[in-house]
């Protein structure tokens, strides 16, 4: 961070009441106005697609008018979650109907390229779930097509639109952690990662994540989202990665590791350690920045600042809410803290009222309304996805893999 950045942040954050520094303006995340409702089609209505439908339903001036899925059962489920939407088996049929201004794409990762390119060609606004694709070539193809598109194309790396993450990034960029020593992240979730079906053909189609030809394992599917948080905060990308993994728990013949660990190395010597497992949930999903003055821990709906004893004190800390973690005390980074305090609702453990995807969709629709840019561009998503692909390659091969972001 430059001194100018630091001064600029401190001027904005420290002026007036010190406690205001803790408060991202949640209201600003919901501020958009449209001349007419955006007509949205949701492509891919599995679990993620249905969640997107639910969150779009909470937004003003948005109407889900179409749902699309090649899987008949999922299409029916999606339609049941809509109010009068039309159903389509293919994205081509959906786009040909001419009924949508925008599409949210939540299809399997390996299908993103074909779906996204068709939507870009049709000129509709796009929200594209991440990882962007399962190969570097597909990332490049989507990225190149998106650059010349007049529509708003947002990528679903949700950390970039998460109010808690934006708030914490302000602290990070203003030097609250001081010298960045190291970074760590994990995603632990006890789950089979299997979508059930008693039809073998359908089961194979639904379980693309467990096919190494169609997906990039835990590092690709989960890690990409978390790696991007570090890219966004530091403004840097790793250059090399080493890793390992194995099937430690699920003895069902799967070929994709259920447990992984990798180290992503940056040019300046910093290292991001990442591990993930499907066999244990302890600690869940989080990212940590370790600095000489403090650590910042981010848990998607929550964030905390852990200060060192020799770190300088800032005025607002006196009023801050705190949470105990064994021997450590975290200052809670609460989105909308002042408003909650006024309502007497500021309490320990309070987090974001909506899931991360809500803010990503809100950011996208706001960008459509303002003809602006979304928080996460396709280019940023392409780079994060390629990092995830490289990490998976390192884990699968056991070799050190150079991360090539040239041209992205």
């Amino acid at each position, binding site marked *: 961070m430059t001194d100018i950045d630091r001064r600029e942040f401190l001027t904005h954050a420290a002026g007036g009441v010190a406690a205001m520094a803790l408060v991202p303006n949640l209201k600003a995340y919901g501020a958009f106005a449209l001349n007419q409702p955006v007509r949205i089609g949701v492509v891919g209505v599995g*679990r993620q697609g*249905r969640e997107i439908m*639910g969150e779009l*339903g*909470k937004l003003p001036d948005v109407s889900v008018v179409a749902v699309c899925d090649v899987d008949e059962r999922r299409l029916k489920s999606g*339609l*049941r*979650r*809509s*109010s*009068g939407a039309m159903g389509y088996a293919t994205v081509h049929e959906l786009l040909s109907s001419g009924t949508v201004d925008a599409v949210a794409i939540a299809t399997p990762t390996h299908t993103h390229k074909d779906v996204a390119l068709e939507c870009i060609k049709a000129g509709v606004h796009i929200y594209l779930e991440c990882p962007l694709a399962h190969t570097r070539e597909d990332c490049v193809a989507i990225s190149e097509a998106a650059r010349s598109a007049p529509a708003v194309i947002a990528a679903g790396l949700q950390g970039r639109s998460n109010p808690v993450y934006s708030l914490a990034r302000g602290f990070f960029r203003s030097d609250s952690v001081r010298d960045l020593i190291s970074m760590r992240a994990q995603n632990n979730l006890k*789950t*089979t990662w*299997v*979508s*059930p*079906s*008693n039809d073998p053909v359908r089961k194979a189609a639904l379980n693309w994540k467990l096919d190494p030809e169609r997906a990039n394992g835990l590092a690709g599917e989960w890690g990409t989202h978390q790696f991007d948080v570090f890219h966004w905060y530091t403004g840097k990308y790793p250059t090399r990665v080493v890793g390992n993994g194995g099937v430690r728990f*699920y*003895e*069902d013949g799967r070929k994709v590791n259920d447990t992984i660990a990798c180290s992503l190395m940056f040019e300046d010597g910093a290292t991001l350690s990442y591990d993930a497992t499907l066999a244990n949930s302890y600690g869940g999903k989080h990212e940590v920045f370790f600095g000489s003055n403090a650590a910042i821990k981010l848990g998607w709906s929550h964030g905390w600042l852990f200060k060192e004893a020799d770190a300088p004190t800032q005025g607002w800390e006196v009023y801050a809410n705190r949470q105990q973690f064994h021997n450590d005390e975290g200052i809670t980074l609460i989105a909308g803290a002042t408003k909650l305090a006024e309502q007497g609702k500021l309490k320990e453990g309070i987090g974001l*009222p*909506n899931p991360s995807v809500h803010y990503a969709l809100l950011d996208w629709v706001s960008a459509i309304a303002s003809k602006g840019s979304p928080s996460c561009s396709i280019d940023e998503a392409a780079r994060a996805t390629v990092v995830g692909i490289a990490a998976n390659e390192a884990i699968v091969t056991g070799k050190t893999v150079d991360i090539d972001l040239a041209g992205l």
Partner: protein
Amino acid sequence: MHLPSIQTPCVHLDPEIRHIDDESFACLGFEAMGCRFEILVEARLPSLSLCDCKSIAEEMRELVLDWHNRLSIFHPHSITSQINRTEAGQEILLDQDMYSLCELCDQLRVSTNGVFNIAAGTLMHAHGFRSTSADDSAIEDLDLSEAFTLDKGRGSIMKLDDRIMLDFGAIAKGFVLDLIREELVELGVANAFVHGGTSSILAIGSGPKSRPWISAAGQQHAVNLSGYSAGVSEIYSREVIQGGRKVGHVMDPRTKVSMESTVSRVVCVHQSAAVADAYSTACCVSPQLADRLSSDPCSIIVFDVNNPPTLHDPLGVVSKRLKNHT
């Protein structure tokens, strides 16, 4: 071995099947809808491996959590909260799933003579179950039988009074168990047992050792739940102190006051878990309904603190409890 927590004084599993072999059953427990859910799904090789069953149980957990988020009155962004804070006279478009639930609730209100009513949430607020500022006088003139209207053509709901507060708590668990049954059957599951907080139960097929899913119901009766669902309601399971007296959480929407009858508990066994939940709630409030509702058909046991249980058993699922069933 897995031990499901079906061991309330009212309902607990036959000891012969209570210990579940986790080599043949996938077991998953989690918190949702204000209680602990447990899902047991039996593997059946070669078509249904234990890992398949685990993934099925996980899918069902997602289904429950999804509906928890959609229906919770404590979540400001749930559909229920959106309905409750919308002004009277303003139409709210619902998705088809949510409209189906509202329609079912309205049908159950009619079939229970207005005793089961999701607008009873209004009473929970007024009597202080939902806030510290109870004011039951504010709803004296309110007619809960005309709380809202549904428009099937548009798939919408409209509140008819600003004071109306909907609460799906009395049926949410049963409704989601019905959805789970549909999914489990579709996925080819032959034997499964699911309960939410032991008060809403779904039993498919048979239990371990091919024995039926038999559960004790009170001191004298055992119920064969296989192929059925059960709903259990208790009057004093939750209460607040109002005006120096205990007020139970079962309210009569017709009179708008808490019940003070001698009925302590009602168990209803029905094909549908949602209907079982609604009927058990209705019979807690109005036990004389049991005779008529049992012709649905369903089996109903009404427990009274002063008298022996009253039994209506057209399904023929209730038997005398075995001695060793403790």
